[in-house]
């Protein structure tokens, strides 16, 4: 067997803080063979990005590499002096950074950014560099005219392709991809991945792929390493991991992936026996429009965020609003919770229109009926107040509880959402809790007024995979116990399938398809919905792969 291309041995990285040193990466060793796709999977805080940055030697203080070696082609990148590190970067190993939106310089054109790499590492100038830049763009399927574009003129997917083109600029044998698709929509994500695989087939480079999304890697990686708390828990080839792995954590990760195709997995979320809901909808939205206008001195910009949307939600129903970024789903959340006013249209609550559209001041009773859970638990809690404050304020404002019963009620509430002992959590500040705990507090706050409707705007997308299902379970439980109505907004069709009774698919501000969850997943009608379903199913990769094979064979002829 030939020698591994990269071998990382006993790598340890410490972060030096004022309270001491924290071991972010602890004795990590792995090898990557030539031509392999090696996946490194871990949740936030697992140290996966630190490993990669240490491998490229781009990790700034307060980090300190305290032990280990990273051998690329048998040369240790950690022991060479600074000036020699440049010889490794891009020639031997290049990196595709997490978010393409930040990885590109907004004030330089695409041409300048590609040519910069060519000039620094290969000394290519003028037309030579220009021609190479053109080649690179066509490699990633971007029109050559785009060379003179600036990053803001490109879509997220295009930006990511350009970052990949830059990483390929001088054809290094190894490319590190650090969450290359995390910020992208599902369909675009799948396209980019297919492109990466296609390029790898054509050019034969080795990939180290970092992600928090195990599901993604199961389909196309060769070997996987699962990281948690700075250690590699399990390292094996994909087939063994797919079967559940040896480590319980791996099993937990595998189990927490919902699937959008095939038969419904049993045991996830309890649904009520019958799905017959009363005829009178609790919430009805009619012909809702929202146009954002930005008026500057001489120009007016119009953005139609929500375009003639109507739907009904019955008491006790969970409705999933599914769409990609820019589909208007968050705007609908803000309209329904009356954070913003619609341009036109009506919102009926319990069959009444509480003059929702006209008045600026929202009646307090509306606030009591409709509550919201936000996407980002780090932003939705105020860092200077305790959990107690967050839960007590709505109750005091609505005069629902007297000061005496308040504390007991809050403790009870916290325990309902799975934070026990409640007394302890009540006194905590947001920064003393994990993301999942914060989101539970945010849910408890929304529940504190005992509302009839909760609008949940991507409540799990900022959380680690292994706790997402637990958070969604709270909504399912509250519906069962308190007949709560939930408007569940998400980009993830698979989780909508499991939680929601009915799914509404949004695109560019309009509803394009609507139906009972299972029906919609099993037999989607619209092309876009079909794409969404396919992208969210396992085996998506093989279908794409076949397509690209066909294309290639066509080109050969």
């Amino acid at each position, binding site marked *: 067997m030939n020698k591994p291309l990269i071998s990382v041995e006993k790598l340890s990285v410490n972060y*030096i*803080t*004022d309270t001491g*040193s924290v071991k972010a990466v602890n004795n990590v060793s792995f090898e990557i063979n030539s031509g392999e796709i090696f996946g490194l999977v871990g949740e936030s805080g697992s140290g996966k990005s630190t490993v990669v*940055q*240490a491998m490229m*030697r*781009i*990790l*700034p*203080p*307060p*980090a*300190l*590499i*305290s*032990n280990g070696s990273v051998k690329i082609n048998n040369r240790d990148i*950690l*022991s060479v*002096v*600074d000036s020699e*590190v440049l010889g490794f970067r891009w020639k031997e190993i290049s990196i595709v950074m997490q978010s393409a939106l930040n990885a590109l310089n907004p004030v330089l054109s695409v041409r300048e950014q590609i040519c910069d790499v060519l000039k620094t590492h290969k000394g290519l100038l003028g037309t030579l560099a220009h021609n190479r830049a053109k080649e690179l763009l066509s490699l990633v399927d971007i029109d050559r005219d785009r060379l003179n574009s600036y990053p803001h003129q490109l879509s997220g997917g295009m930006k990511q392709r350009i970052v990949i083109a830059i990483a390929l600029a001088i054809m290094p044998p190894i490319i590190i991809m650090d969450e290359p698709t995390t910020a992208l929509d599902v369909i675009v994500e799948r396209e980019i991945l297919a492109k990466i695989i296609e390029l790898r087939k054509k050019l034969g480079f080795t990939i180290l792929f970092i992600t928090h999304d195990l599901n993604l890697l199961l389909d196309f990686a060769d070997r996987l390493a699962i990281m948690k708390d700075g250690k590699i828990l399990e390292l094996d080839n994909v087939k063994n991991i797919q079967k559940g792995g040896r480590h319980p954590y791996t099993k937990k990760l595998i189990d927490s992936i919902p699937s959008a195709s095939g038969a419904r997995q049993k045991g996830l979320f309890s649904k009520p026996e019958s799905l017959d809901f009363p005829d009178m909808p609790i919430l009805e939205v009619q012909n809702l429009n929202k146009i954002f206008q930005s008026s500057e001195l001489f120009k007016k910009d119009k953005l139609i965020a929500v375009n003639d949307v109507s739907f009904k939600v019955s008491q006790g129903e969970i409705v999933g609003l599914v769409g990609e970024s820019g589909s208007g789903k968050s705007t609908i959340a*803000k309209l329904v*919770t009356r*954070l913003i006013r619609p341009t036109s249209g009506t919102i009926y609550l319990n069959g009444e229109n509480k003059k929702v559209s006209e008045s600026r001041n929202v009646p*307090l009773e509306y*606030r*009591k009926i*409709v*509550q*919201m859970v*936000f*996407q*980002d638990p780090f*932003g*939705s*809690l*105020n*860092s*200077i*107040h*305790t959990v*107690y*404050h967050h839960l*007590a*304020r*709505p109750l005091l*404002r*609505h005069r629902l509880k007297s000061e005496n019963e308040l*504390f007991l009620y809050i403790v009870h509430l916290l325990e309902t959402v799975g934070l026990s002992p409640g007394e302890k959590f009540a*006194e905590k*500040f947001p920064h003393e809790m994990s993301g999942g705990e914060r989101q539970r507090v*945010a849910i408890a*706050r929304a529940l504190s*007024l005992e509302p009839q409707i909760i609008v949940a705007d991507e409540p799990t997308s900022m959380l680690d995979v292994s706790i997402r299902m637990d958070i969604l379970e709270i909504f399912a439980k509250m519906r069962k116990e308190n007949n709560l109505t939930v408007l569940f907004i998400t980009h993830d069709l698979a989780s909508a399938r499991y939680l929601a009774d009915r799914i509404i698919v949004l695109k560019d501000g309009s509803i394009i398809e609507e139906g009972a969850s299972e029906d919609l997943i099993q037999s989607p009608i619209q092309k876009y919905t079909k794409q969404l379903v396919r992208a969210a199913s396992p085996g998506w990769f093989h279908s794409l792969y076949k397509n690209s094979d066909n294309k290639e064979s066509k080109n050969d002829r």
Partner: protein
Amino acid sequence: MKNKIQHSSIVTRWFAGIISNKKALAGSCIILFFVFIAIIGPFLIQSPTDFLGTPLSPPSFKHLFGTNGQGQDVFSQTISGARQTLFVGFSAGILVVLIGALIGGIAGYYGGQTDDILSLIINIFLVMPGLPLMVILASWLPPGPGTLLGVLVLTGWAWNARVIRSQMMTFRNRDFVSAAIISGEKNIRIIVVEIMPRMLSLLASSFIGASIYAIGAQVGLEFLGLGDISTVTWGTNLYWASNDLALLTESWWTFVPTGLSIAIVSFALTLINFGIDEVTNPRLISERLWRNKVPRNMITNGITPVLKKHE
């Protein structure tokens, strides 16, 4: 009881932060010292306006800082000058921040037409040339501390309002504000209880910046003779020193104590400002701390430090 816990927390956190930060602690001690002198000092010393000894006699045991051109004791003058100068300086600082927070905060929070109108007012004050306006107003209005305070606040508030408005606009769209709105909270409570404490570092450093500006501008105006020259302040001390041709007669003791006091107060305020920066933005200290904990000779230098192997 519960309320007490939350209420003290942010204050105690801040207090602990200031105490543990050397720069902020040093600055605070100096300022407290001067404030103490300004309050207590005038009761303990001879009258600063009495004729006490030979004019322009150099420092001696009788007159620690010497005497000025009118034969008045410079030590007494320096101490009693602190009172009005610091009072006007800090009051102007507080007023500038209050007005800035009120107008900037309302403009940033409500947006729309309210913002248009308030921004227009802020912008008008911003484009007015501050220095000439200050000189003209100070010479036109009856001289005195009230006039000085008014002039300083009038020419100084707009910039703060602008900064606070921008900060408010970013907070306005944060989720925790939306969450407070959805829970039915009143706007005024959201501004005061939810947002303003988050801006504490901005407000505090605005206050300090405004105070430094107010002390400097005030001394400048008085030096030009635009204050009430019958009162004893640091500015009038300098005015008289200049009038008595202190530089020509080489009587340095008539202006150095006052000048030094002004410099030390500004310096101490700047130290506090640095301290606030470090307390609220721990990233600023983490690298220095890192350097202290990991000696330079133990690592190979570079963007990524690697611990040298002990072989």
